[in-house]
């Protein structure tokens, strides 16, 4: 379902280009879950952003559902993000002027795949039914992250990406949020790729790979 092949990425600095990703290769099948671990600054977020068509690689391919994302135009990549990829960020990134219900359904409406029944279901499973009318600033961090997960899965994506989804949460809340996410991933059958520096959380996914100095190693 997802193939990453010979991915290279570096950033320019006054001292020259610094490689962040070096010849990264991996695959992820539909319904599979993969944890991407590594120390802070190892390139986890960079890899996730490239896979999510949010950033460009210097070279290499990201092939999702047979389509090479790295060769698409900006408009086509936006369409792919909208229709096939759900992203959960560390900072939640909810739309502050929309309430919970509106945030949950937003990407699905953008993609033209809003399903009231599915939304009702995952809203209940995420424990957000009573909070539908509230706005993001009225929610705790854990509640906001659950909304972010719901929004990402409302569109029934092929691939769910999560960049340190529990990074801003306490341990108990983080565990609970991850459990809900895995539950819904299972229900939708999408592939799940999560970047985390927590080995404990990484162990809950089916597979793990580790980024060190831009190189990927299986664990």
């Amino acid at each position, binding site marked *: 379902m997802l193939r990453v092949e010979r991915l290279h990425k570096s950033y320019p600095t006054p001292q020259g280009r610094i490689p962040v990703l070096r010849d990264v290769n991996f695959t992820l099948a539909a319904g599979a879950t993969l944890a991407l671990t590594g120390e802070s600054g190892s390139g986890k977020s960079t890899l996730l952003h490239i896979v999510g068509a949010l950033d460009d690689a210097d070279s290499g391919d990201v092939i999702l559902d047979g389509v090479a994302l790295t060769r698409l135009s900006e408009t086509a990549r936006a369409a792919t993000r909208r229709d096939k990829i759900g992203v959960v960020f560390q900072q939640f990134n909810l739309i502050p002027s929309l309430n919970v219900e509106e945030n949950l359904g937003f990407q699905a409406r953008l*993609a033209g795949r809003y399903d009231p029944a599915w939304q009702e279901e995952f809203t209940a499973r995420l424990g957000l039914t009573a909070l539908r009318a509230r706005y993001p600033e009225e929610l705790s961090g854990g509640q906001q992250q659950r909304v972010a997960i719901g929004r990402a899965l409302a569109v029934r994506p092929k691939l769910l990406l999560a960049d340190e989804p529990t990074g*801003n949460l306490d341990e108990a809340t983080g565990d609970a949020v991850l459990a809900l996410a895995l539950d819904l991933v299972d229900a939708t059958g999408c592939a799940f790729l999560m970047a985390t520096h927590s080995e404990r959380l990484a162990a809950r996914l089916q597979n793990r790979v580790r980024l060190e100095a831009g190189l990927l190693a299986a664990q």
Partner: protein
Amino acid sequence: MRETLWTLAALMSHWRRRPGSLATLVLGLVIATALWSGVQALNAQARKSYDAAAAVISGGGARTLAASRGVLFDEALFVKLRRAGVNVSPVLEGAARIGEKNIRIIGVEPLSLPRRSPIARMRSRADVIEDFFSGPGRAFAAPQTLSRINFAEGAQPQTERRQQLPPLAALAEAPPGAIVVDIGVAQRLLDRPGKLSRLIVADDETLDEEQLKRVAGDALRLVAPDDESDIGRLTESFHLNLTAFGFLAFLVGLFIVHAAYGLAFEQRLPTLRTLRALGVAPRDLIFAMACEIAALTFVAGYAGVIGGYAIAQALLPDVAKSLESLYGAQISESIAFDARWQLSGLAMAGAGAVLAAASGLTRALRMPPLSVARPIAWRVEHHRYLRRQATFAALALVAAAFAYRFGDGLASGFAIIGLSLLAAALFLPVGLAGALALGEHAAHRPLARWFFADGRQEISGLSLALMALLIALATNIGVGGMVEGFRQTFVRWLDARLIAEIYFEAATPADARDIEAWARKQPDISAILPVWRAKTRIGEWPVDVFGMTPHETYTAHFPLIEAEPGVWTALRAQEAVLVSEQLARRLGVGLGATLDIPTSGQDWRARIVGVFPDYGNPKGQLRVDHEKLKRYFDDASGVHYSLRVAPDATMRVIENMQQRFGEKIARIIDQSELKSLSTDVFERTFAVTTALNTLTLIVSGVALFASLLTLSDMRRARIAPVWALGATRRKLAGLEMIRVIAFAAGAAAFATPLGLFMTWCLVAIVNVAAFGWRLPFHMFPAQWLVVFFVALCAAFFAALVPVARLARVAPTELLKVFSDER
């Protein structure tokens, strides 16, 4: 389409949660559009009235024949042309007074007028034509004119010359402020027997210059239909000044829009990032933002057009009175909802909104989805911002210098003022940042250092509002200084011009002789000074010619800007004239130059021996020896006189004259009342300017308030850490107020030299180009203090609500800045 609609919904939801920001943006656009539209409505209404008045006889677009020399010509020329088969229609126009109202008398021959003339349409109404030609005839006036002169239909009022009008009748097609009569009646009413003003050439008449010369010699000239009327030419500067003011007010209002939209963009950056991350393509995002602007612009723009209509209606009475007093122009007393100025208002609203949102749209288009909201180190961004401001300020200053060096006329005068204001406004944040950096360097205590450092961070958010305040303050000082200087100069000049104690106008020249004979026998009257006058035309400028007798009233008091030695002797003994300052500038002449002055007969060649100031007069004026006036202008009106009387006998003499001569005196007034009337005209003329000035200052105060209110949420994130470290909310709120007032004081201090420069530009360049007279340059320190005080008050009241909210903010709100559940 679906993506665009949902993106638009997400964007618009921002305003739903922040109605104050939306109100600010809409209010800014409404105010900017209203001020611009209001001025355009006034100008459009005035021009429409001029065009209607000019077209009422000819129907517009017709060629005319006018005197080559002077103003009037003999009707024998009309007879000659008709006998030669030239199809022309005679017209005689002049001014008369009915009661206290000046009225335009238009004499026509309706059967020969062009078919499309509104007056000619009365040919199709048999009852009207019959009334016009039979019996005493008819004097047609528009209903609003009848109510203005306070006479009903059927009445037969008299003019100041005791000439009785035919019975009045209402005619909707008659122009405002005018009475239409048969041409023979007009010649009687205006005391112009056998004279005509012009001939309207019929549409199908092929008369050319050669044929005209063959028939009429060089007595007449052919005037093309699109040649600007006298009124249009004379009032052009007045309307241009109004437009300039309207544009300035529009720009200040745009600052509100720019500030509101810019701040909204900053607040929505996280939303824009999220939208891009969720799969909204850049072009869909831009299109949605553009649709948002278009919707807001249409709603706010149209509300602004309606507001402009209200402003125009409110200012119209003062504008109408100014135009009537200064130029004798009559304009309609209600504003028509004309499509042109409405579209102009909407177009300006649209252009303004696009300008205000352009930088945000460009940034949203260019930035990749990840870094749209990534915070750049504020110092890097701050220095970049200041460098950009300084660069553009320097460019604007260079452009202003270029305009000064190579420009000429009114447009370059306004360009110099506009570019200088822009340069100063752009430089203001740089100056304030520099002052704050010095303060930070000098401060020792930590809270003081934070005060200055945080102030530097706050500048970019407040800069637009402060720039608007600077422009408004500088304009107040600049225009206020010019007006006050003009007022003082005008009063002094009036004192020098109005030396005689009594001024009167006799009904007829024969009545004038009677009064003169009586006055010579009165011991209270020490001098009788005829002030006869004639009209002529030099080039394309209408000119009044006044006679002067050699009396110490003039030789000791009449103000002169420049004069030859022995000017009064030369005026009496030689072929010499005094010329008004504006006429001298328009003709490009000065001391020693000669003028060929069209008279009743041959042209009179006279030498200019003096130039005199003639403030407030749009026409040119010549002053000649009384005997020369009588010699060269046999149609000079010999009914105006001034009398030198002992001051304590003035009212007694006036009463005696009124009792003895009754209707033989058309008008009589004493010096103090005349000065009061003149000053009243002056004040009314600048009432509109003062109103626009005040509105601009209010708008800038609103801009400051709007910016502070919108920034107050962002301020919390910067204030929270300081509060957490031990500063009380009250102290922080107090520092916030001090900072805003200090910024305003900085803007006011900067505005003072800028305003003085503006005053100099107005007196030395704009007024000279617009009106032809140069005023002395005055400074009024008391005015600067008032403006300074107003700036501090504006800042205080603008900051009051945001600061009060900050002082009362709950600790939980401040703690949310730090919320972290790790």
